[in-house]
């Protein structure tokens, strides 16, 4: 008996679309940045600020940042050299230009290959996504700094930035 081509094609299309939608849902929508899973990185990078997802900056940025922890946004955040090396490996291996997550590549859109930003908040895409946030909101006592993602993105610790 010949297999009917049209129902089969339709079926395949349905499966493909469902897989795509489900995959998205599992990843938690478009703005998902897998949170840091390495306990050492979580401990060392997450003590003073949110342990930012490695997929929020390109590998070259992480290398530049980890190369000068003595001057870390005005703080001396030095760690032992072997600790710094392990953290760097993790950040580079999961960086925005390595991870292959659909959204993380989008985050680098507009960034010139010769730019090595240290602040996630200076990425052209980040700036565009936050253009509607007013100065008054940034200065709010529960926000105070653009590095304080969780002030507005309640699920930031879990990598969720859809809200």
């Amino acid at each position, binding site marked *: 008996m010949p297999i009917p081509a049209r129902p089969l094609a339709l079926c395949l299309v349905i499966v493909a679309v469902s897989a795509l939608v489900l995959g998205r849902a599992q990843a938690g929508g478009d703005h998902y940045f897998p949170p840091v899973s390495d306990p050492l990185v979580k401990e060392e990078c997450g003590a003073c*600020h949110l342990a930012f997802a490695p997929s929020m900056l390109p590998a070259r940025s992480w290398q530049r940042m980890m190369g000068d922890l003595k001057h870390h946004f005005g703080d001396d955040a030095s760690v032992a050299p072997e600790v710094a090396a392990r953290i760097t490996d993790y950040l580079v291996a999961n960086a925005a230009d390595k991870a292959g997550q659909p959204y993380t590549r989008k985050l680098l859109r507009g960034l010139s290959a010769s730019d090595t930003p240290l602040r996630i908040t200076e990425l052209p895409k980040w700036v565009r996504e936050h253009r509607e946030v007013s100065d008054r909101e940034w200065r709010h006592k529960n926000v105070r700094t653009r*590095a304080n993602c969780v002030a507005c993105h309640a699920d930031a610790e879990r990598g969720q930035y859809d809200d």
Partner: protein
Amino acid sequence: MNTAAALLPLSLSLSLLLCGNASAAPRDDILRSLDSAARAADPAFAGFSAARGQALHTQTFAGGKPDTPACTSCHGATPRSSGRTPAGKAVEPMALSLSPTRYSDAAKVDKWFTRNCRDVLGRECTAREKGDWLSFMFSQ
């Protein structure tokens, strides 16, 4: 009543005592080594004081960073309150009774004294200051 039943309360309290000692050991070690250092620095040193530690914790300093003039800038008003770093990260209370896992790793304690003393006081803390401060937190 048999012997086993009679010995149960004794063995229970003994094991509690021993376990208590086991978990306090790293803290005792940290204080002991600070005590030796404080004695070496000042022969008249007569032990740590939680009251001096409290004064240190709440004092305002001018030598550190402008946005963190006191321990309480990030740690909250009292050892029992939660705090927040300038970057917005929540900090669990420093009181040992509320954060019983704290102060069990000497290297970690050392790391944070180094960083935070520099940021708040603009210099390293002395062994006496560290011991006083820890004694205050252990008493809370």
